[in-house]
């Protein structure tokens, strides 16, 4: 009897997981994107302060850029309503380009450029967050 109830509970959880998958997927992609943007910001700022080696900052920023690229593509392809997500995708491409330039700044050891890109990243991150809330509310 107990095993039957456990099996029913597992089935319910699985069905629930499957039915809400697409919206959960979108929010999962956005969470991953936000996480990698924050990582790029922290790694860039730690490098500027001399708290991490150049080689680490370079690799982490490249990895962040790759993740952003992959997640943007996934989001663009998986969405049933791409016009709804259009502003977010635009913002994501700007972010990706900025992170790529940050990786370049680290490679050239250009601290001034890095500081400018960090400011831009902060603004873009806020814009993304606002857009995500707006789109999520629709």
């Amino acid at each position: 009897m107990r095993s039957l109830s456990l099996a029913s509970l597992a089935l319910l959880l699985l069905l629930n997981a499957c039915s809400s998958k697409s919206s959960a997927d979108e929010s999962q992609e956005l969470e991953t994107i936000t996480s990698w943007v924050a990582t790029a910001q922290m790694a860039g700022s730690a490098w500027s302060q001399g708290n991490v080696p150049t080689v680490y900052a370079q690799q982490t920023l490249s990895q962040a850029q790759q993740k952003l690229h992959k997640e943007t593509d996934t989001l663009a392809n998986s969405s049933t309503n791409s016009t709804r997500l259009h502003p977010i995708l635009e913002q994501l491409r700007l972010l990706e380009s900025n992170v790529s330039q940050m990786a370049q700044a680290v490679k050239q050891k250009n601290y001034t450029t890095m500081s400018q890109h960090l400011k831009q990243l902060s603004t873009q991150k806020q814009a993304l967050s606002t857009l995500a809330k707006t789109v999520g509310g629709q």
Partner: protein
Amino acid sequence: MKKILQIALGILTSIGGFLDVGAIATSAEAGSMFGFHLLWALILGTICVIFLVEMAGRIAAVSKHTLMDAVREHFGFRFQFILLCAEIGIDFLVLASEIGGICIALQLVTGVDFQWWALPVAFCIWLLIWKGTFGLIENGVAFLGLVSLVFVIATFKLHPSLTKLGAGLLPTLPQQDTAHYLFIAVSILGAVISPYLFYFYSSGGREDKWDEGYIGVNRGVAAVGMSFGSVVSLCVLIVAALVLQPKGIQVDSYQQAALMLTQPLGYWGFLLFAATLGIACLGAALEICLDTAYIVSQVFGWNWGASVRPKEAARFSLVYTVFVFLASLLMVIGLDPLKLTLFSMALTAVILPLEIFPFLILMNDERYVGKYRNGWISNSVVIFTIALAFVLAIFSIPLELIAGG
């Protein structure tokens, strides 16, 4: 005086030896994603592992059997063989994860991709076991592992709120990401209650020729050592919750976890994170290699011992030699070390009932432990925790796989 020194040594090595790739990965991910909400899983796992490690030492000291020998004698070869296969499977995945942890630590400081480090790392592990003695492996690496106390220092520097820490000790379900929350809870339990620890500990007890006089030392080392050791894991979780979570960083790569000590400790924080990861994983990798060679040799009745010269225990040496190089291949082909770690830890929770069931039977059998049989408290704590870990695992692993985690 000698006993006090032994307890002190045991506690010190437990602090250094408790932390491994599983503890670092699961604690960092838990803290960065769910703040302090998974502290309860670490505490529960620690209580359970204290009881189990104490039992593993007690059976070695009283019965003069290693755990595997006792299982064979009591349950027969067929059951022992099933247990052996399950343990080898888990050891293989966990060893690959530990090698991955060392490789990532090297990548962090050198920039050379982790895959390139896998074979050299496997060679170093093999060389240490081949040339080293049990004392060197157990104590030497564990002493180096004291570097992990950097997480305790960072925690003090970050001044966590005691009220929030207290709230994290009570199990609660989050509003969202419930499946992932449960998966991480299971992974934490799997990381803390590592079966290889019991086989390694009981085999070590036999190598050190423990007898009933060691019951007190064993109890002290298990209780105090494991408690202190788990403090480091708790601190990893707390630091991740205080540094990474507010910034929205969810650890899904060791690159991200490496940033957690830079805020409180600057450049040294980065280096000490890499050092902690590398040394903790090296210690655990050595233990797992030895554990696998121990249990295979014990099952087939071969000569075994870390302090025995390789030519006197050729098949024992062959097992860890083949095992370490095969496990390193999982890193050579480029499997994600963090994902492999979390998955291995959750899988460990699934096989825990199979691993622990014979253990409990033996610990309640007078023929093995005489008057030192288990009390109802230790039996209940272990049964409850293992059942919880198993139930959570069979629900959360499929959900995690469906979600593509």
